[in-house]
């Protein structure tokens, strides 16, 4: 099966920042992404969990973006501008993708 090299960027970020992040990505010309739910976590700012949460102030989500390697820097710049002052974590890894025409 023919595959194509790509980068997989996973951004774990507060839910309140999600639309700001995806707006910034769109402005940077990135149009494909997927949002995954996050149940809880732990980090420098302590432990949290989604159980019983009524506030939307404290939850997080993971935004996943598969992108052509040459467009990675544009995406990271855009993402960084949003996450800069905020908690969260941005990882990049290599992957292969089927159907390059679709992304």
């Amino acid at each position: 099966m023919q595959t194509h090299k790509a980068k997989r960027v996973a951004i774990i970020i507060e839910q309140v920042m999600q639309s700001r992040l995806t707006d910034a990505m769109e402005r940077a010309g990135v149009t494909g992404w997927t949002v995954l739910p996050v149940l809880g976590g732990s980090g420098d700012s302590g432990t949290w969990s989604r159980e019983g949460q009524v506030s939307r102030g404290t939850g997080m989500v993971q935004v996943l973006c598969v992108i052509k390697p040459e467009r990675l820097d544009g995406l990271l710049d855009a993402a960084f501008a949003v996450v800069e002052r905020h908690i969260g974590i941005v990882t990049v890894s290599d992957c292969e993708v089927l159907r390059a025409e679709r992304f």
Partner: protein
Amino acid sequence: MDQILSLAATNLLSPIILSFALGVAASLARSDLNIPEAVAKGMSIYLLFAIGFKGGVSVADHGIDGTLAASLLAGIVLSAALPIVAFGLLQVMGNLSRLDAAAVAAHYGSISIVTFVAATSVLNSSGIASEGYMVAVAAAMEAPAILSALWLISRGGDSRRMDPELLREIMLNGSIVLLVGSFFIGWITGTEGLAKIEAFIVSPFQGVLCLFLLDMGLVAGRGLRGGSGVLKPGVLTFGVVMPLVGATFGCIAGLLLGVSTGGVALFMVLSASASYIAVPAAMRVALPEANPSIYLTLSLGVTFPFNLTLGIPIYIAVASALTGG
């Protein structure tokens, strides 16, 4: 004093307070009891819809007296002014950073709708009337505090851009929209509309409130377990003193406006209560460096239980005494 004690006793032994206590106890004991996020949100939507609708119907019923506009304005002024009071108090009592102090202050200017709902329950069962439009006042008090807090920060040299996107988010926050929207629906459809959905929004209301408070107890207990380390005694004291200070301001506003006994009590409750939904979300966007453990623990773990158990009876008793109601 007698009335306070008897009200407090009745209040403390009501199913809703005991449900809250059960929640706190369960999470302090690290039981795995928990209510799914979707169910908790569903209940909060139900409560907002019901309380807004009933407020609107009551306005449709009794008409608006002249104080509606004045009350809304008073609510906005209170919400905008109380953060400044809170900020000043925090300078004296705690040694929080400017950022943390401003974030906490924003919460105390804004309101907790569940505290409001619990207070109206107590008023109802005590047979004390209140203005239906107090729901609209509650909605009006949600947001201004946030702007005050951001102004406090920007005055300190830290120029925060209050981006229009954030302003829109604050104003069109889901709970404000639902509360105001259902208020208007209730107003438009009146008692005839209420008759159609009474079996849904009136009869089971207290029971849903029990389960919702059970969940609030679980969340508050979890917050206390995790956040108790971050709160210095001075800040903890603030969590009990500030509601009383806020209630005093609310009381003066209510008396000046000449609203009913229940109306004065609710002004006190709104001013005394601290937000834990709309404001934390706004703070995460606007002041991400402020520590959420501090303001969430204070608001949800200290002030909310205080108001729920002791505050509400005190405010009602004081309002009754001062209005001769």
